């Protein structure tokens, strides 16, 4: 009887705690969309700066994600499949960008890619301006979001039993052939989900971008700029439009994660 009562009290407490957190997370977004969602969508038609900013955000985030996927996939496979000296250090290094404050990441990138740096000056010599250009935005997005892709992709590869690859090899496949005929299709959903997470993180980045490239403005910088220059009323529609557009990758991610079939 006593244990039943304890169970009931704990259940009520757990439900209450979960509801409070959910409310805290959802309420600001719901309020934002409710208050300014309509105007935000209208502004998409009339505000050219907002449209250009969203377009820039989409292009830079997609480019950063493509680079992240291209370079991060082999790295993730290596970390999931191989045991080698320094593997733990490499994994920790990959997590570092997730832990440091993003303005700090921006400063570090500025040191590496700024006009006076070795890389930045060489790039300028061949006509490539990194800081203050879309390249700077891509670099900042890549730095802060690629570790998320590598981490997710590594998990996706680790979930594919290596014996599938082994069987494919004994059936005549080269390592590359086994990878693209077996591993990639089996890890595909996980990789795609990780890419969506990376893309979403890149879209929402502010701290590192604002240090590397204030102009041209990506959406996050634009909403901050409207807020500081014109106040809350001007920032609200932009923020609401961004919140509504964020539902796209979120929905995609959910769809990808609903089917996580496994086979033994």
């Amino acid at each position: 009887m006593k244990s039943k009562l304890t169970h009931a009290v704990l259940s009520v407490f757990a439900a209450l705690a979960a509801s409070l957190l959910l409310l805290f997370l959802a309420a600001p977004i719901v309020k934002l969309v409710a208050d300014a969602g309509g105007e935000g969508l209208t502004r998409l038609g009339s505000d050219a700066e907002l449209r250009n900013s969203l377009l820039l955000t989409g292009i830079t985030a997609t480019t950063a994600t493509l680079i992240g996927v291209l370079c991060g996939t082999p790295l993730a496979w290596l970390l999931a499949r191989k045991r080698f000296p320094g593997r733990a250090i490499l994994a920790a290094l990959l997590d570092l960008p997730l832990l440091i404050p993003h303005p700090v990441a921006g400063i570090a990138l500025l040191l590496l890619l700024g006009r006076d740096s070795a890389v930045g000056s060489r790039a300028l010599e061949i006509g490539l301006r990194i800081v203050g250009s879309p390249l700077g935005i891509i670099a900042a997005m890549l730095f802060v979001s690629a570790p998320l892709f590598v981490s997710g992709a590594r998990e996706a590869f680790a979930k594919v039993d290596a014996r599938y690859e082994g069987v494919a090899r004994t059936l005549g496949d080269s390592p590359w052939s086994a990878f693209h005929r077996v591993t990639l299709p089996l890890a595909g959903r996980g990789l795609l989900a990780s890419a969506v997470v990376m893309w979403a993180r890149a879209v929402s980045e502010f701290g590192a971008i604002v240090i590397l490239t204030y102009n041209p403005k990506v959406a996050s910088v634009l909403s901050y700029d409207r807020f500081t220059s014109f106040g809350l009323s001007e920032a609200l529609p932009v923020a609401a439009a961004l919140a509504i557009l964020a539902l796209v990758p979120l929905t995609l991610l959910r769809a990808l994660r609903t089917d996580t079939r496994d086979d033994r």
Partner: protein
Amino acid sequence: MIHLEHVHALKGRFLLDDVSLRLNAGEFGVVIGPAGSGKTTLLEVVAGLLSPQKGTVTLHGADARKLPPEQRDLSLVYQHAFLFPHLSVKENVAYGAADDATMHEISERFDIIPLFARDVRGLSGGERQLVALARAFARRPKLLLLDEPFSALDPRRRTVVRREVRALHRAWGLTTLQVTHDFAEAGMLGDRAVLLDGGRVLQEGTPAEVFRKPASPYVAEFLGAENVFAGTARDLGEATPDWVDGEPSIYAQGHRAFAFETEGLTFYAVGDFATGVGHAVIRAEEITIARDQTFDSARNRFAGRVTEVTTLGALTRVAIEVRGVPLVAALTTRSALELQLAPGIAVVASFKAMAVHLC
């Protein structure tokens, strides 16, 4: 041909330790051992999926250490099949198939054509194993590596598939290495048996040799021998036993006579054994039971009492106590019924000297 010499291979924390085995072209080898003994690891070394740290691996007469799995001309079937879940049954079988004709021939032989359009995730365990076997055969390899490939099949189908595998092995001249923990299966299929435990080869030989002449009491017990006794073996040497005619030179060539003392009993044994402390193994099927003292050629004859009678279909196990020492005999149920065996009945257990294996 598979030839492993002093192979050491590490998989996680498990070590395959100084494993040597030889399987000639066309032979069917069976690796037996308890779970975690290294059977699958051994197959993975042969397949090239795990590189040995030391030792040599020779396949088809060539050094295979530098050969990747795809160049070893083999197929591997895991116990859990590992069918590719993103492909249909047909696509799985066709995955590494030599050609369409072979794929269809094999699929017919394993009766899986009705499954072709099915999603492999919806197959039963037995169906998965059938598809995995078909996929392996469809490649038409020279070497076949099978890891408990019949474990999920029902008994009737297991018999049919086992026969089919053996027939294909013969017809195609394959060299096959199969892992099993079922010694009966090993006896049915294997030309050679390798007993593995803790990553080491405990014994290698024909299944009959391994079964009848286990190298240690552990091997004997693993292989289901129920009468294993610790004691001391004494070479009867010059004292020619009464059942051996002629001079010692005759029995000195591998047919020496021994007396094995254990717990107050003396067993007579004939063979080529070491003297001193060791074990005697007598298989239950080698022991006959009589209700009274009969005179036959058996040199070991002990009066005792039945303690337990257990009937399993046509086979009956009879436990007997001889001066406090337990013996187990396996009889046909019909014999047990005719002898009217029951606990407490006085009987005589007898077995030939050749049935006593000392190790």
